[in-house]
């Protein structure tokens, strides 16, 4: 492809951000037109990229490098072999489309923002650019660069336009968590950059295509898998590093919450999968049976906490923790069904939370409270939000016929299939012993999800409507309705006819799972008892440390 579709998708928002900032102050409201233009441009292009990628799905068994489409390659810092390489496979094309959809929704629901609109839209554009960039990056350094580009505007957007009560605390917490997480991952990048491969010279490149075919030494893999995976996993809300996320959701303005829960958390899961699992498959096979337990905590624990929340945004925030746990759980299932489910869950949850947050934002803008005890009878004033919230709620509880089920069913299949994996991995954990049990316990999360969703629907939308208290309630705007309908339709279409998304997601996951399968067969784990494997791990760490120190 000659035309640089991906570069335009990823970089044009930055250009628009500059244009928006150059607007004269008194014409601040024109910012939203520019923002809308940027998002529509992005949506059209990413739709094209999605369709084109879907039409040229890779052959079975093709390595990842060959499954990339729309590749662009430019030299950046030749001395370090840093390159600007972008491209998409099936999964990232899907996520790029998701980002464009949620981004457009975000611009539309912020249509009436009055506080410094130019700056708001400019930072929002930067945020979208960063997220797009991560999904299209084929170079680890570029990926990291865009990752930071996505995190920093979040800080500003929350601190300036956020909820006054908790915005500074939340923004600081979020930024610190994410920065520390990403720096841990970055150190792992540097290790991969400098580590000799196959007894020869180090690769000295950040090109993921080369990394994805290199086989790093087993010891390197099991040491550096965790930093790499967890570093990005923080952004995916992996327990016990999930805590920043609900606080961040609550403090952020509506559009930012939408991007945050809808796309940004996927970015963590995507990066953890793309660089963590794909580059270090043996490390993944070694550690994922353990990570599965963390994700189980995520799913159940997030749901439990969501049940006691009174603030609607906290409720959705914790439900996101629970649902993102399902994504990681799909990865930890180590099978193609689990990965496919995880990929679909990213999209499904992305649209679903965006829908949720837009509903909450619409209510908050009018009622000035998100407290579920105070809100009641919103069905009267804002009938469209009821239907939208119920559809979102049904998706989140995995109702068949909607997208959530299409995601959860393969994930459970994948985890259950883990019963046939015979690995004796870290801490002596053997998937065949407990994967079925994990599937059984995690359904507890789904039951509780139904509980808190019903509770929210009941207390917010039904019940008595106090016409005096809400006398200044204004009806929804056409734009708001458009957003709600758009999101709902996507959720239903995926649920009824999953072929619009499932094959392309599977095609993106296939090479990764292929590598995992190879790693499983090659795996020689010492496993055994808890103490034994801990000792083994320590030995490897010590040996590596001493070799580096010797080198210096």
């Amino acid at each position: 492809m000659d035309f640089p579709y991906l570069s335009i998708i990823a970089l044009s928002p930055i250009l628009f951000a500059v244009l928006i900032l150059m607007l004269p102050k008194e014409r601040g409201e024109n910012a939203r037109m520019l923002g809308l233009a940027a998002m529509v441009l992005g949506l059209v292009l990413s739709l094209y990229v999605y369709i084109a990628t879907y039409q040229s799905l890779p052959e079975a068994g093709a390595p990842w490098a060959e499954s990339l489409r729309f590749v662009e390659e430019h030299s950046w810092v030749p001395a370090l072999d840093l390159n600007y390489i972008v491209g998409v496979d099936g999964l990232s094309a899907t996520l790029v489309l998701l980002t464009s959809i949620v981004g457009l929704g975000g611009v539309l629901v912020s249509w009436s923002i009055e506080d410094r609109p130019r700056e708001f839209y400019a930072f929002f554009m930067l945020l979208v650019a960063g997220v797009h960039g991560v999904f299209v990056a084929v170079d680890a350094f570029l990926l990291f660069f865009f990752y930071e580009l996505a995190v920093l505007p979040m800080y500003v957007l929350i601190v300036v336009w956020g909820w006054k009560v908790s915005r500074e605390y939340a923004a600081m917490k979020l930024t610190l968590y994410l920065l520390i997480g990403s720096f841990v991952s970055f150190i792992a990048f540097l290790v991969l950059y400098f580590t000799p491969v196959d007894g020869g010279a180090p690769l000295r490149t950040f090109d993921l295509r080369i990394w994805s075919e290199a086989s790093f030494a087993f010891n390197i893999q099991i040491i550096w898998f965790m930093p790499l995976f967890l570093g990005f996993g923080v952004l995916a809300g992996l327990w016990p590093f999930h805590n920043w996320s609900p606080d961040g959701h609550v403090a952020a303005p509506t559009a930012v919450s939408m991007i945050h829960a809808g796309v940004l958390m996927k970015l963590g899961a995507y990066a953890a999968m793309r660089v963590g699992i794909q580059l270090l498959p043996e490390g993944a096979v070694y550690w994922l049976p353990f990570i599965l337990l963390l994700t189980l905590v995520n799913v159940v624990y997030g749901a439990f906490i969501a049940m006691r929340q009174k603030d609607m945004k906290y409720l959705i925030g914790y439900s996101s923790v629970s649902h993102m746990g399902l994504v990681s759980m799909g990865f930890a299932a180590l099978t193609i069904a689990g990965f496919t489910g995880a990929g679909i869950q990213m999209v499904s949850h992305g649209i679903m939370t965006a829908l949720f947050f837009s509903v909450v934002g619409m209510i908050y803008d009018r009622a000035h409270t998100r407290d579920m005890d105070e809100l009641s009878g919103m069905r009267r004033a804002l009938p469209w939000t009821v239907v939208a919230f119920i559809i979102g709620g049904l998706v989140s509880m995995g109702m068949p016929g909607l997208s959530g089920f299409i995601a959860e069913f393969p994930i459970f299949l994948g985890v259950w299939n883990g019963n046939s994996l015979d690995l004796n991995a870290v801490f002596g954990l053997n998937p065949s012993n407990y994967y079925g049990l994990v599937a059984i316990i995690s359904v507890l999360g789904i039951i509780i999800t139904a509980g808190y969703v019903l509770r929210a629907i009941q207390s917010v939308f039904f019940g008595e409507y106090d016409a005096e208290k809400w006398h200044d309630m204004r009806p929804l705007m056409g734009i708001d309705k458009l957003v709600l309908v758009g999101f709902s339709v996507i959720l239903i279409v995926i649920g009824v006819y999953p072929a619009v998304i499932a094959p392309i997601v599977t095609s993106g996951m296939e090479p990764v799972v292929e590598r995992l399968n190879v790693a499983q067969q090659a795996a020689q784990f010492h496993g055994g008892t808890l103490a034994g494997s801990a000792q083994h791990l320590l030995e490897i760490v010590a040996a590596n440390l001493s070799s580096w120190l010797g080198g210096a």
Partner: protein
Amino acid sequence: MNAQLLTTLTWLIPAMPIAAFFIIALFAWRSRTLSWIIAWVAIISSLVMSWTVAISVLGRGLHVLEEHPEQIAGAVQWLPLGDFYQGQWLKMGVAVDPLGAIMLLMVSFATTMIFVYSVGYHNWGHGLGKHKGEPQHDMTEEPLLARFFGYMCLFGGSMLLLVVADNLLLLFVGWELMGFCSYSLIGFWYARNYPQHQEITRIPPREAAKKAFMTTRIADVVMLLGIVFFWWAFGTLDFSEAFTAESFEQVINLVGFGGLGIMTLLLFTGTVGKSAQWPLHVWLPDAMEGPTPVSAIIHAAAMVSAGIFMLLRIFPLIAVSIEGTPYVGLVIAGIGAFTALMAATIALAQYDVKGVLAYSTISQLGFMVAAVGLGAYVPAAFHLITHAFFKALLFLASGSVIHGMEHGAVHVHDHHHDPQDMRNMGGLRHKMPVTFWTFLIGGLALAGFPFITAGFWSKDEIFAEAWYQWSHDAKLLALVVFITLAVAALLTAFYTARQISMTFLGKPRTELAEHAHESSPFMTVPLVLLAVFAVTAGWSGISDRFLGTDGIFYNFFHHYAGAQYFHLMEELHELGLVAHTFETLPWSWIPLIVSLVVALGGLALGWWVYGRRPLESGQPDPMIRTLGPAHGFLNNKWGWDGLYQRLFIGPTAYFSEKIAYELIDRNIIDGILHGIARAFYRTGAAFKRFEEVVISSGVDKIKDGFLSFAKEFRYLQTGKVQEYALISVFIATALAVVVLLINSGLLANIFN
């Protein structure tokens, strides 16, 4: 008719009502009249297509059906699972086999009757009601009629979808959609509130809806695990692919009988929820809070029938599990028999006219589940069909009674008495003759009145099967089930006689009953039609060897429903995986005598207590004195609700609030985080003091700025572009430093 057309028709059977739901929800919701007309058109066309398809399938003859049970099939690729490059897609399709055909006949007919009835029930054409989300006590038209019919269409469509589904997942789709519809419809009167002190304790509809949804949901997700396990073991979810003798052999090699037993029980849990078996039966009585047509569709045509239907669908699996792992049969039959008896005892002491019927449904479903647990496939299916007819009839008739009572209430302006309380009724026989006669037919069918009613024949089949298993195989479980069900049947006849006597006999006990009058033809015509089926449906299943004859009676139902798995069961029997094939049982007098005694005895006893001298106004129930404190216990429904509240709901709330949120999330995780932050701050403060002492004030300023980093960030709020630019420069510099560091080879030295 050609196969292609039949397949298309089969797709259209569920598609029509579901499409009607969308049409009503999107376009027609403003017009109540148009909505019900659309609903009628949809459901009647489904009825016509269902009967066409079913008769065409059943008409192909017993021999053809036994050879190829699945007569109509069509599937589309739906979701890639596994290696989709090799075409491993999960297919979604429809199929009609003998079981499906029989079910289609029943479901489409009962649903249509309920749709017809609903128009009258909601007082169409009697002026627009003013109370949204509440029953119209002034007998005016329901303002949300369009919404009602929309959900009813989705409900009926989902049930039909479940019936024609050719795989477990599509069945589950219909299953869950019904769960959602029942939630919406039970809570249809979302604004209804009850006064603090009620004679009959009820929870508001919105609570009932939530309870129904949550309870069935618990079962559903367990069932989903069963489906996952099924897929893993069989490698397919398609019934006809999975249920072959070869695949059973493979699966048994793969997971063993133990695994098969667990799979069966996981799937069975779905039925426990959906078909309201103990311990998840608590939602069904409260589901009465919905409008009566909703109760009827839940109790007869859809919802609870779906649970039993699913058991029948996976019957080969159950049969193999029962044979391979004894506890499976014990659990299924035990739960069924216990539920049958427990619910029957509760029904004795209820005063709500619908409440009695609700518990009778639970009890009758227990009969079916117990039958399945004994491996009695045909009797369970037979009772499912006959029960659906007479229970739909009973519910609609009781709705008609309540409707009549409410008319009375409007007439005398008495809104103090509860129109659903049987103590306020009496003497309605003359006021509402059609309702009385149809209710009587339904009641007798429920009680199993011999030789005429459908309920007699189907219950008798269950008794015969249980007795055969005891007398022939000396299976103790069968005897226990036999005795339990006999007692339950006795109680059933008793409380039916009680209900009929209290409602219709004697003199009116309140002004409401005094001024009640017969309902409109919209309501009475469906009653009459259903009454016909409540009688005749049973004649299709008279045993071939009834009274020891041979060749006089033909057990149509047994042969046609049995054709479904006839060959498979023979093959499995040859492999030694199941004990019995679907043989015709030898004649035995004992079950016949028992069912005669319990039905007639129970009715006579009930009539003797309640009918001989009907209750006077204000007279307490004679059973209160007879049963003593036990009556209170039964009236309180054995206290399951309170127990669950203390055992599950309370602790869950406590755990989420105190442990998960406050202790772990806020105290431990946040505590650690804040601890680290504080430690850094203290370290910074210590450095600061160190610097103040050691280093000159010039450097202090920079450091002060650094320490109050967080506060300084507030300057961002000024919104000055140049300051943003400054931040950008800062970030860019930081990145540049990193690049330079790498470039200089410093890091490379460290790492090599």
